[in-house]
């Protein structure tokens, strides 16, 4: 910062010096242009007269002229050039150097007796009769010199002032800026993140803080939403556990009240076992999901041929659909490959097909259920494969779409059916483990389409 300032000052100083020197040259040339025609005529009386009475008084006083004749004597001077202290610059006789030197209008800087500085130029010319005339012009450089010195000193002073003042003042300024920040920090300390959304009031702070406060409030809102989700998740799990437990307890109590026939016992135990199986499934799926979300599942990613995988899925589910006159169609080309962990990919696909089976049945009884599996390359370099599972059911309402991949979320269409609302969450978790993606495509007229996007090239991870 200070360095930049220094450079700036120097540049300004140099520019000033150049400007002033060039002004001096202009003045001298103006003078020479005025006098030179008379020297060409070579009349001494006329020349004396020229510098005496005819010399324009309005011409700047700081220009001094002396003219020397062919004998080397000064024959005419401007009135200001008679001063004693200028005897060095305008001697009575011509210095031989001036004649020998053929310097024309060349500037030399000369310091006079009283230490004033002049820019001096000596011009040699000849008249009609070939006599030599010498004209010496001096411009008082002193005022400029002083100005320059003052400016230079001013700059230097400013520079040192800056060096000293910036750190000193910055403490004060920083303190000023920090005051609201300290206040902010105190206020944040007092806020507790939790169920209540903790928000800061932007009005209380300078407007420069608006961005910070908005971000903080956003973060606080996200945190409290996460907190809410966690709480409702725990509540949902407890609820999911309570239902089968309650059913178990009831069945066993009723069974135990009085002696039953063997068949009754067998039937009840079967029912109890079904409930227990359901409970085990819930716990297994939950653990699987949580472990997957924390990336604790080992994924051995290999190249998988999609065609046989999708065909085996079709074979697995075809009988179920045929029982209700439905169909499952597999539109998958041969030689499509993805990189994935086979068991996980299979699980994701099965979850989506089962989701379609459970919730994707058409409401219109004249329509028979239809599930279409398809896979095709996508992306510019076809380095991804999109696998879609489409049903012809009632679809998903747009306002539910953002939540369907949440754990234990069960949409309206899933009410009254078996399931925990973990299937789609597991699908998303599996896709996350593969750096893949799952989405619901906007349904056109009916049904819904889930799309999985997986890489068809090896990923460097």
């Amino acid at each position, binding site marked *: 910062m200070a360095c930049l300032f220094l450079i700036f000052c120097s540049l300004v100083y140099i520019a000033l010096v150049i400007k002033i020197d060039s002004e001096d040259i202009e003045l001298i040339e103006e003078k020479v242009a005025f006098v030179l025609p008379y020297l060409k005529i070579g009349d001494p009386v006329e020349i004396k007269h020229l510098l005496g009475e005819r010399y324009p008084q309005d011409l700047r006083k700081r220009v001094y002229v002396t003219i020397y004749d062919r004998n080397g004597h000064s024959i005419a001077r401007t009135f200001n050039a008679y001063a004693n202290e200028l005897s060095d610059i305008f001697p009575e006789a011509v210095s031989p150097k001036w004649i020998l030197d053929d310097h024309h209008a060349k500037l030399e800087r000369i310091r006079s007796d009283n230490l004033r500085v002049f820019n001096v130029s000596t011009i040699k010319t000849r008249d009609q009769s070939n006599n030599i005339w010498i004209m010496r012009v001096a411009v008082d450089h002193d005022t400029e010199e002083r100005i320059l010195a003052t400016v230079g000193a001013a700059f230097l002073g400013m520079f040192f002032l800056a060096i000293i003042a910036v750190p000193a003042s910055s403490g004060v300024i920083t303190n000023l800026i920090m005051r609201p920040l300290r206040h902010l920090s105190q206020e944040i300390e007092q806020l507790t993140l939790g169920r209540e959304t903790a928000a800061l009031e932007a009005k209380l702070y300078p407007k420069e803080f608006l961005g910070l406060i908005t971000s903080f409030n956003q973060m606080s809102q996200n945190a409290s939403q996460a907190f809410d989700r966690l709480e409702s998740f725990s509540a949902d799990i407890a609820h999911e556990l309570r239902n089968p437990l309650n059913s178990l307890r009831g069945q066993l109590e009723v069974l135990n009240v009085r002696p039953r026939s063997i068949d009754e016992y067998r039937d009840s*135990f079967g029912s109890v076992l079904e409930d227990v199986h359901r409970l085990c499934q819930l716990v297994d799926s939950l653990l699987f999901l949580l472990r997957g979300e924390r990336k604790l*599942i080992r994924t051995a990613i290999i190249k998988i041929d999609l065609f046989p995988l999708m065909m*085996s899925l079709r*074979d697995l589910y075809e009988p*179920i659909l045929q029982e209700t006159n439905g169909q499952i169609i597999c539109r998958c080309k041969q030689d499509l490959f993805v990189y994935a962990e086979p068991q996980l990919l299979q699980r994701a696909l099965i979850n989506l097909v089962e989701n379609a089976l459970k919730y994707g049945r058409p409401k219109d009884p004249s329509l028979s259920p239809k599930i279409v599996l398809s896979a095709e390359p996508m992306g510019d370099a076809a380095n991804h494969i999109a696998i879609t599972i489409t049903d012809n059911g009632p679809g998903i309402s747009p306002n539910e779409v953002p939540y369907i991949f949440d754990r234990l979320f069960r949409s309206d269409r899933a009410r009254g059916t078996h399931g925990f609302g973990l299937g789609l969450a597991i699908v998303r978790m599996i896709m996350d483990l593969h750096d893949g993606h799952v989405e619901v495509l906007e349904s056109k007229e009916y049904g819904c389409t889930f799309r999985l996007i997986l890489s068809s090239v090896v990923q460097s991870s």
Partner: protein
Amino acid sequence: MGDNTLKILVVEDDPKTAAYLQKGLTENGYSVDISHDGADALELAKGKSYDLFIFDVMLPFHSGFELLKILRSLEIYTLTIFLTAKDRLEDRVCGLDLGADAYLVKPFSFSELIAVIRSLFRRRMGADHRVHSSDQLEACDIKIDIVKHQVRRSGQLLDLTPLEFKLLTFLARREGEVLSRTLILEHIWDINFDCSTNVVDVHIRRLRAKVDEPFETPLIHTVRGMGYVLRSENSNPQST
């Protein structure tokens, strides 16, 4: 297999679990000793010769893992199954690294445990006794030709799809064993988790239409809450 009784040591600190294991295993024709802690188990295992150890992992005094380590250092190489509620991958790997032969995660189904025990003993004996030859399989009045992919019941040729053939062969190989839906999914479709739909039931229903419906006596039975079993009606449900 029941001719000379196989001896099993079960080490499980939860008394209820221990009791049902003892009951279930005894009913399946095994001779069972129960121990509730690691120290007691060590004495039993050193003093008596067992055919199989079933260890819980979390035990008082010595954990199941420690127990197996000590026994292996004493050069006791009895077949070992771990039962545990911990199913982190590291635990599984740790158990198998120690030389355990199987690892079952609680809650497991009892039929699953029996299936594992049987397969361990079968593996040790080298072959499945019920397979008369590698390409012929008989169960009840069903004859399966593995090589020709042909199935006859009472001499009558059945027209089965490859999937139905695979399913029936699996049931026939494990004749008399209750096979859970999970186990069937795993064996036939290589799916190692529970589907929530009744997909297995539908496939069994199709198989029944071809194997059972044309005949007087059904062979494929549903055991509610557990799974399916292939057996002739009059045989004892728990027989091996």
